[in-house]
């Protein structure tokens, strides 16, 4: 079952997309990100290691409802209506 989710971009990822928020539909995080990169071509190389969208680049952090998808089911993490995906470059500070 697919869901409509809010996608929020931050820092350099937001600058490249020239915007911050999208509402996209898909069954899992991979599908949502695939839709996102068809809307903004430059993001494809920035987010994925390859054209098959098999793996995320190591220097990106993707959260689903505040949890890093690495600790859920990765790109296969399912989404439902009203979920939120947040995408960051690797950041640091403190």
């Amino acid at each position, binding site marked *: 079952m697919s869901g409509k989710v809010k996608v*929020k971009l*931050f*820092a*350099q990822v*937001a600058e490249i997309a020239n915007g911050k928020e999208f509402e996209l539909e898909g069954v899992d995080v991979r599908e949502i990100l695939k839709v996102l990169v068809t809307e903004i071509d430059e993001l494809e190389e920035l987010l994925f290691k390859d054209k098959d969208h098999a793996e995320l680049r*190591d*220097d990106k*952090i993707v*959260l689903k*409802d*505040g*949890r*890093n998808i*690495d*600790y859920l089911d990765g790109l296969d993490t399912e989404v439902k209506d009203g979920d939120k995906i*947040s995408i*960051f*470059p*690797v*950041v*640091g*500070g*403190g």
Partner: protein
Amino acid sequence: MKSKILRVNMDELTVEFENVPEDYKNLGGRALTSQIVADEVSPKAHPLGPNNKLIFAPGIVTGTNSPNSGRISAGGKSPLTGGIKESNAGTPFAKTLAQKGIKALVIEGEPKKDKFYILKLGKDGEQFVEADDYVGKGLYKAYEDLHEEFGEGIEITGVGIAAELRAANAGISYTDPEGMSSRYSGRGGLGAVMASKGLKFIVVEEPEENMIEIKDKETFDKGRKKLANALMEHDVTKKDGALNTYGTSVLVNIINESGGLPQRNFSEGSDDRSDMVSGERKAEEIKKRGGVRPHKCSPSCIIQCSEIWTKEDGSDPVGVLEYESVWSLGPNCGIYDLDIIGELNRACNDLGLDTIEAGNTIAVAMEGGLLDFGDGEGALKLMDEIYNKTPLGRILANGAEFTGRAFGVDRVPTVKGQSMPAYDPRPIKGIGVTYATTPMGADHTAGYAIAPEIMGVGGEADPFDTKKGELSKNLQRATAAIDSAGYCLFIAFAIMDIDEGMEGVVDTVNGVLGTDYSIEDVMDFGKEVLKVEREFNEKAGFSKEDDRLPEFMKEEKLPPHNVVFDVPDEEIDSVWED
């Protein structure tokens, strides 16, 4: 060794240069301040009494041209925690003190008369000057006047009005590269210790001869290049990377989205309005206003995460608005306005207050009903109470725990009397283990578990996983070593991921000291520093029961994840196992 220890006796207003004892030869920064405190200060001494001492020590590589080496440690027994304290800062003062050949400054005693003095460490010698004209003056103006009185080519450290009150949240200020009072050994109230010695400022003149000795120049040079390469390669620290582009506040959004950015005195973990005070928004504003970004806090820095924030028309520079400060004075008080936060930060820098503690204090006062959450103008008026040295101002200048007691508040986010930084430990548990166990009281820098838990830097760890004893232990050991070497802690992002960077750190330390430490020795070095600090605290009366987070964090679920802090006590205590 050319470097000396300078002992400053405030009873007699005398100074004496001493040779560096054999045991201290390979120590610097935190390792040296903590060792001198352990050797010379009774753990039972009153922090503001004549038996406490205040130590300054640049790091081992500080003053060299190795990247990001401009750090200084201040140490003593803390009036805020009652335990040992090391609080470090990046400032040109560190380099100047090191190049003058001062390995440590030990300030002891207290003057017979109730007076404040300036200690000038000049090219022509050392002298004490009365500081009467500076009492009650804000530090921005004081530093301007000191530059006028002592001329250019000086660096300054000093304490402000909060320290004149001998308040437990009085920090120690240092000059930034513009000569302003914006760099801080903020945490733990060491400013009050300096004031209790009758010492208001130390003014150091640039020496004619650089006294730093590098025993093995070849190894040193090889090391500094390796470290520079790692810093310029890593995504977090490289030019145009996250820190360089947005500053430390780039964390606002990711910690908020992760549900761990404390809002309104640690009652919630995120709020959509946090974006209004994010690093992205701030960088945009600084550009618009004609402020400076990126900027370096000290001469050797190549990461350049700093900045100069100004008023809307580009006037009245404040200095950097760090992530921790933006959070404590902002979302933690329900304030989402960078201009209000900027003015609150200005007041902290001017009064000589630690921003983390100050923001938590305001939030606790809000919780106690003194003013409403979100009342920025009201928060600024509280700062006036401190300027005016009123009884309320005296309460507030003593920090969150003291203020919580004064206002009958039971949600007070402190460990060992020191309030928490900008990460709620309920959804990010490793940082909670560090808050609980570090000898410093709640301190994120002591073992920055956020790097693996949120950023995936230096390994990966699920923030919800409660098995974090080992992680915090290793981070605390590595950090104690970095704080002693004199490097900015932000090099850790790069050296934890890039081996060449870690080699660079060890090579530069070996180069300066003429030692042959290996990478494996780094953790042992850090372990030894922690042992000295923990033993001091035990003798001061602390036990493992003090290594606990406040009760409310184990009982109140934090939205949006609705989790409590559930790391078992045995896991917390495992930090101190071998």
